[in-house]
């Protein structure tokens, strides 16, 4: 049954720990002691009995003992191999999902960027500025010069163009303040001159610069209509001193998606800053939270060059990484490659995952890499918490692969066989009377050896099962962290959206003028916004009395117009807003604005004259399609084995009141329900994770939980994410 032919981890493999080598030596030396004992037994058989039948019986027994000892030595080798394979498999699968999580995080972020640039290019202030610039080409040159002498105050410049440039810069600044992920945003004329930017510190350098030779600019002008954009992979641009990731699209006459191309907009995403956060996540740290030696996380572009790294010293950006060549770039989206190799002097596991993009965004062909010391896969987990589960129960749980269970049974069986042989030997010896008594110690010795050997193996098995538990708990923690991080990031984007939209001229104009045609125009704008996103049920504007005056979906309009929302939390929060960088949010609840069970409503204040600070005229409320937003994220964070979701695995979010607000399994973990999960998993500090074991409706589960840490300006609502899988 056991075969030593395919052993991968034999005892001389350097990854085998010292303790395990010692345990192996002990087991084998004990078992080898049995052979001389058996020989001694065979000799004794001849001495103590003349009866050939008795002699044969004793000889047979001794041979059986030899056979089972040999078989136990073989099983021991197989057993160690399986022990290490199990650890390796589970470690590799965790590393793979970590590499994947990281690239997925960045791709989701980049998808949002593609929506942003297309939407912003429609802004009136930008295309108006370009039109004026085109009419006054000589003024453009002067603006650029005066910009370098601080701002556009010079009276020699055409004041209309000057004002337009100023407004464009202001609006770009508004965007940058709402979406803090950008280092700069620029507006460029058809001939390639930058006439407005968002970053005041860079203004004197950037304004007047000619970027007509840059790829992102040329490609932006070639876009067919307002739905197209271009993204230039990490490369050098005149606009910045560091490498840039630039999204661009054309500016079109009249802000019309089909209009004539009159210029370009470029947005410079803070790729390095954003990637650093993601790359450093999920890397183990020491007590000073410095990443442990030998652990690296980095992205490479489709040329196999490092574009961002968790450790610029060992794996510097701009170069090929010190990992096996075949890892530099993988062929197809979704490809995964796992190898062991020497990386930066350490024998390491190298896991690479090529991006599949996200949703409609196909990505730039980047690959995410994770490197960890090979020894880290086989280390004993230091945590030895008592989860109230017996080693036996753990051993029989689903966390332990079937092959390991079979080996365990084989060991148990051999142990039983040796015990039987030994006791039958004692019976035979007894039948020989006084002559037989000299056999008793031999059989005692066999029993003792059999017991100690199998006892040692049981210890190792129990160690393994507790390691497997730890690894699985860690994996669930990672999934729950991913789930909460993704929702935080998504809600940050929505917070950015609502802040920016609240400044839209159509909205404050409508509230200021209080005319039907203005409200219609506002509704139209809301409709355009809603059409470009999939995650909103509706967007509404309420005036200062709480009366709904505009909304995005015409089919809801009659119903909403009769409503007064002045008592609702989101509206009241919105009316407190006096600065455009603020926003409010009403936690998931049952709202009578919608017929849905769960509503999540964000709000922004619409301020007088579209100012950054001022009197609030009304409130913009955006209603999330919460379940459709949370559902896919949770689905993506379910525990999987070889891409299949583990049977009974589930993920859910809980609000600050510890009620479920979204779930992948409405039968067992229904919305509104409280679940009897361990208290450690509920009492988490912001950004903390925990894991444990709990029983729900008679079934035992392991669970990983993480609490929101917010993301940038979005501080989180005290939610927690939980990922569970049954183990019995």
């Amino acid at each position, binding site marked *: 049954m056991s075969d030593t032919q395919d052993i991968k981890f034999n005892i001389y493999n350097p990854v085998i720990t010292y303790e395990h080598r010692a345990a192996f030596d002990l087991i084998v030396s004990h078992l080898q002691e049995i052979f001389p004992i058996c020989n001694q037994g065979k000799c004794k058989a001849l001495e103590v009995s003349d009866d050939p039948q008795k002699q044969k019986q004793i000889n047979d027994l001794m041979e059986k003992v030899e056979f089972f000892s040999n078989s136990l030595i073989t099983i021991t080798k197989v057993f160690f191999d399986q022990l290490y394979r199990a650890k390796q498999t589970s470690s590799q699968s965790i590393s793979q999902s970590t590499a994947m999580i990281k690239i997925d995080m960045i791709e989701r972020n980049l998808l949002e960027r593609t929506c942003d640039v297309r939407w912003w290019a429609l802004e009136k202030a930008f295309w108006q500025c370009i039109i004026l610039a085109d009419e006054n080409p000589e003024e453009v040159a002067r603006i650029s010069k005066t910009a370098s002498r601080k701002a556009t105050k010079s009276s020699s410049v055409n004041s209309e163009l000057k004002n337009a440039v100023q407004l464009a810069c202001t609006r770009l600044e508004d965007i940058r303040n709402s979406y803090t992920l950008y280092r700069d945003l620029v507006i460029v004329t058809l001939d390639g001159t930058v006439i407005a930017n968002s970053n005041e510190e860079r203004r004197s350098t950037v304004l007047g610069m000619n970027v007509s030779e840059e790829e992102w600019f040329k490609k932006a002008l070639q876009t067919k209509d307002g739905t197209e954009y271009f993204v230039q992979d990490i490369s050098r641009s005149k606009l910045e001193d560091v490498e840039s990731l630039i999204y661009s699209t054309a500016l079109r006459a009249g802000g019309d998606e089909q209009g004539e191309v009159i210029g370009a907009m470029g947005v410079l995403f803070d790729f390095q800053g954003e990637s650093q956060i993601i790359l450093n996540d999920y890397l183990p740290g020491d007590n000073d939270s410095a990443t442990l030696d030998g652990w690296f996380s980095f992205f490479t572009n489709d040329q196999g060059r490092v574009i961002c790294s968790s450790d610029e010293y060992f794996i510097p950006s701009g170069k090929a990484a010190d990992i096996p060549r075949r890892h530099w770039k993988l062929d197809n989206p979704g490809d995964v490659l796992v190898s062991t190799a020497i990386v930066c002097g350490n024998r390491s596991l190298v896991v690479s995952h090529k991006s599949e993009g996200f949703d409609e965004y196909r990505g730039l062909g980047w690959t995410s890499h994770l490197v960890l010391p090979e020894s880290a896969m086989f280390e004993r987990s230091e945590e030895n918490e008592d989860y109230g589960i017996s080693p036996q129960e753990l051993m029989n749980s689903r966390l332990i692969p079937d092959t390991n269970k079979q080996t365990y*049974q084989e060991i*148990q*069986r051999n142990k*039983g066989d040796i*015990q*039987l042989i030994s*006791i*039958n030997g*004692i*019976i035979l010896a*007894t*039948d*020989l*009377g*006084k*002559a*037989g008594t000299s056999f*008793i110690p031999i059989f005692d010795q066999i*029993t003792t050896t059999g017991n100690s050997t199998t006892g040692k193996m049981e210890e190792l098995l129990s160690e393994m099962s507790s390691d497997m538990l730890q690894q699985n708990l860690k994996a669930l923690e990672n999934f729950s962290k991913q789930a909460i991080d993704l929702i935080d990031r998504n809600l940050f984007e929505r917070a950015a959206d609502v802040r920016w939209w609240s400044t839209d001229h159509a909205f404050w104009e409508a509230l200021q003028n209080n005319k039907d045609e203005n409200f219609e125009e506002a509704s139209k704008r809301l409709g355009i916004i809603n059409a470009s996103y999939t995650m909103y049920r509706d967007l509404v504007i309420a005036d200062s009395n709480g009366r709904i005056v505009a909304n995005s979906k015409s089919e809801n309009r009659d119903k909403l117009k009769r409503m007064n929302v002045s008592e609702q939390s989101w509206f009241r929060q919105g009316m407190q807003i006096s600065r455009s960088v603020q926003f409010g949010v009403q936690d998931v609840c049952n709202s009578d604005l919608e017929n849905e069970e769960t509503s999540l409503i964000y709000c922004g204040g619409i301020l007088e004259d579209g100012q950054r600070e001022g009197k609030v005229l009304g409130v913009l409320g955006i209603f999330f399609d919460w379940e459709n937003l949370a559902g896919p994220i949770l689905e993506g964070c379910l525990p999987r084995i070889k891409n299949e979701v583990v049977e009974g695995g589930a993920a859910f979010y809980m609000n600050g009141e510890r009620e479920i607000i979204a779930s992948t399994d409405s039968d067992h973990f229904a919305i509104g329900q409280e679940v009897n999960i361990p208290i450690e998993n509920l009492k988490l500090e912001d950004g903390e994770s925990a894991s444990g074991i709990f029983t729900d409706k008679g079934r035992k589960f392991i669970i990983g939980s993480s609490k929101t840490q917010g993301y940038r300006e979005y501080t989180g609502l005290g939610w927690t994410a939980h990922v569970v899988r049954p183990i019995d």
Partner: protein
Amino acid sequence: MLYSTFYLGKTQMGLPIPAILEIGRSINFHPVRGAPEIIDGLINLRGKVVTIINTGLAFEAEKVKSTDESRVYILKNNTELREVADADFDIETSPDNIGIHVDRIADVISVENEDLQTVPANINHPFYKHVVRRGEEFIIILEPQKMLNLNEHQELLS
């Protein structure tokens, strides 16, 4: 004398080693149609036909099930018993080889005759012969002759 001990449920019991012919795994029972429930079946031991009693049912307790841990004690018949060399004991079994099916085997223990105590009257049972104290545990030494006498199990047999 040496005793082989085993468990029946949570009770540890023992039989004197000389009374035992062999101990094996509880497999290959040949069911006997029409036999009483207390009989698990027959086995063939080197040409001998051995009847197996379910010890759990014999004690009117939970039936012993065949598992990886369950074992069969095959006892010597009275003739074989007398062939044991240097015998200085007084044990009777039965005229035939009979096996008893138990939940799980435990240690072999050596007990001096003076350590064999009488069974307290309140827990007495016809199959019990002695009780032995081992630390905090008690081990019941069975009386094979009674145990193997199928007539003792009249009610179950009828």
